[in-house]
Structures are given as C-alpha cells and as structure tokens.
C-alpha cells in the first residue's frame, strides 16, 4: 500500500479535485493520498468526488491556512 501526498495549495475549485482524480487513477485500491489545499471549497468537493467514485475520506485536518484531506482509494 502506498501513501502519497498531493500539493493542491492555491488551486481553486475544481483543480484540487482534478489533480486528485488524476493522481488516484494511477494508484491502487487501499492506497492513501493526502491532498493539501488552501481552497475551503475542497472540504465539500473532494468528499463529494470521493462518494461518487467509491473512495473513502479517512481524515481531514484544517488549520488557519491549509486543509489536508486524506483519501483511501476504493476498489
């Protein structure tokens, strides 16, 4: 199982979702990716994208400046 990181800081919706989608397409079921964003919209969009596509949000950490959303890749 791999654990990767994606820097989506300063990107506005829907770029964090597109970058996550493209990265996940190259990963395997069970792998985890931490997406680091600054657009608060990602708090809504990445989970919505994950639900539609069968992935799981396993953690979300929000600070004043950044949001890190951890996604486990679905089958």
């Amino acid at each position, binding site marked *: 199982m791999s654990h990767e990181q994606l820097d989506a*800081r*300063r990107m*506005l*919706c*829907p*770029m964090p*979702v*597109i970058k996550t*989608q*493209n990265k996940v397409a190259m990963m395997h079921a069970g792998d985890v990716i931490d997406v680091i964003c*600054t*657009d*608060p*919209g990602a*708090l*809504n*969009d990445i989970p*919505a*994208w994950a*639900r*539609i*596509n069968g992935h799981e949000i396993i953690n979300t950490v929000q600070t004043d400046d950044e949001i890190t959303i951890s996604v486990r890749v679905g089958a």
Partner: protein
Amino acid sequence: MARQHKAVALISGGLDSMLAVRVLQEQGIEVEGINFYTGFCVEGHTHAIRNHDKDKQKRNNALWVAEQLDIKLHIVDVIEEYKDVLLNPKHGYGANMNPCLDCKIFMVGKAVEWVKEHHQDGFDFIVTGEVIGQRPMSQRKKTMPIISEESGADDLLLRPLCAKNLPETLPEREGWVDREKLYDFSGRNRKPQIALAKSFGLNDFATPAGGCCFLTDKNYSDKLVDLWKARNSREYEMDDIMLLKVGRHIRPDSGFKLIIARDAGESKFLEGYRKQFPSIYALSHSGPMALVDGNFNEEHYALAAGIVARFGQGRNADEVELDINIPEQGHQQIKTTPLAADDVLQEWYV
C-alpha cells in the same frame, strides 16, 4: 443477449443537463457525466474568495448534480486546449469574449473522443441538456446541426429535452432510447424544465444568472482584452485568468497594472502570488494587498504606492509607509502621501 448501451452526458451543473440525464435514466440507460474545466468556469469558490460571499454555497455544481443523479463524473482539465477555442473561434464571439458555439463544438468533440476511448466499456452516445432557443448564440435551431457535424458526433449526439424538434438520432433509430419519451422543449421559457424537475422530485438546482462562464461577463471580458492589449500578445496562463476574477484592476500607466484586493479574503488570496508578482501593502496602516502586473520599475513606485495607500485605512493620513516587494530582488519601504480620490482617474479602472 443485447448489449447494454451507455451514454456520457455533458454536465455543466445546471438544471438542463441534470434533467437530460434523468430523462434517460427513466428509460433505464446508464449514464456517466463529463465536465470540462476551461479556467473560465464560474464557480462558487471563486466568488467565495471575497468576504461578503463567504456564506454562498461552496459547492461544485457539477459534482453536486452527479451525486444527486447517482452517476460518476469525470472532470477534465482542458485549460491548454481551450486557448485555441478562445483565441481563434471559427464562429466568432457573442456579446463579449464568449465563443459559445465554438465552445460547445469543442466540448462535444472532446466527449466524442471520450466515447471512442471508452467504447469497450459500453459507451455509445453523447447527451447534452441543450434546448433549442435557450441561448442566443449556441442553442438555436440553426446551430444544433452545426454542433453535431463539426464536433464529429453526428447522430450520436442526443438532446433529450428537445429531441422531438430535431431529426432522429442513432440511439432513437436503433431503439436504444424511446423517442416518444423524450421532449420538445424550445425557447427561453424555463417553466417546462421546472415542471419536469418537480415531476422527478428535484427541488434544488443551480440557476446561474448569465450562464456558467466568465467570458459572458462584460467586466471580465474587458479585463481580458486589456491584458492582451497591454502585453501586445493574446497568450495567457492560468494565473492570469484567475487574477482577472479578483480585486480592483487599475492601470495608471500603459506599462503596468495594479490588482488591489477589495477585502481581507481577496488580500489573503493575492498573498499567494507574492513570489510571482511584485506586491505592495501598507506597513503603517491597515490596507489591502496589491499585486503589480507588467513592467514595473522604480520610477513607478511612488504612483503605485500612492494609489494602494488610497484604498487603505491611511487614505486621509499625511503619509503612509508601504512595502514594495519585487520577487527575487527583495523588499523596499517607501513613504508616500495617498492619492486624493479624484486623482485616481476613472479611466484607470479596467
């Protein structure tokens, strides 16, 4: 056993594409969505940069629609390819810099490519939520066949909301879709769509005023044209088109332009660009972050600082100290008198 036919639908996030998918789902057709990101798409998030828009829904409508319809959505970055559509539209522009007809042809063409790539997964045809007469440039009786032909979709392009006003398509002729259960909507009246939405139990849907693209907006288009004129080139990068959505744009000199934040939300957003663009902000008083785009040198500093000071809390002070940062060169402090309101000329505003 007959093969299950599937469709890919262009999902904008608005009501029409949502209904088009729902109509086919009623016929048992499996649909997946595709959404193209050009960089000019109007998104709640872009508006949400500003403080007073913070309460607006921060959702991507295309994703939201896909979730309501229980379909997969493929979001495709077409920023680079879209440049040619914007810069060289065969069918010209609409009221502003919006190449709507070429844009639709491009997007349907991209969907054609996607269907070809995924034919082995059962995808056979393309669906849009187009309605004849709905849009003055791209959705007219005359333009419907142009989109089908020039995109390469031909009779694989089905528009369920107005199909009965158009010639039969392959999915209808082959019986994959029952034409009788499609619709004959036309014109700008939204009542039939709203009634159909209600019949499906859909009560929440996006109704973006002026469409879903910044290029239909006069102010945005004016800023884009100004940028091209100032650079003597129509090339643009993603950061350029993002920054046109934010702040006051003031061009006091043909060589440079100031982008001045209108509130704390925009200041925070512009701060993210300080490594790429020269920036100015007040040290002695509260005030907005400003970026400088263009050929900016020391002879411009006093004028630029005076304008930025004008938009901060020190606007009435005798003197304001500001920091000017030039990437890879460093910071410089400057003291200046803020420009009087009348000295910020109206023609400087882009």
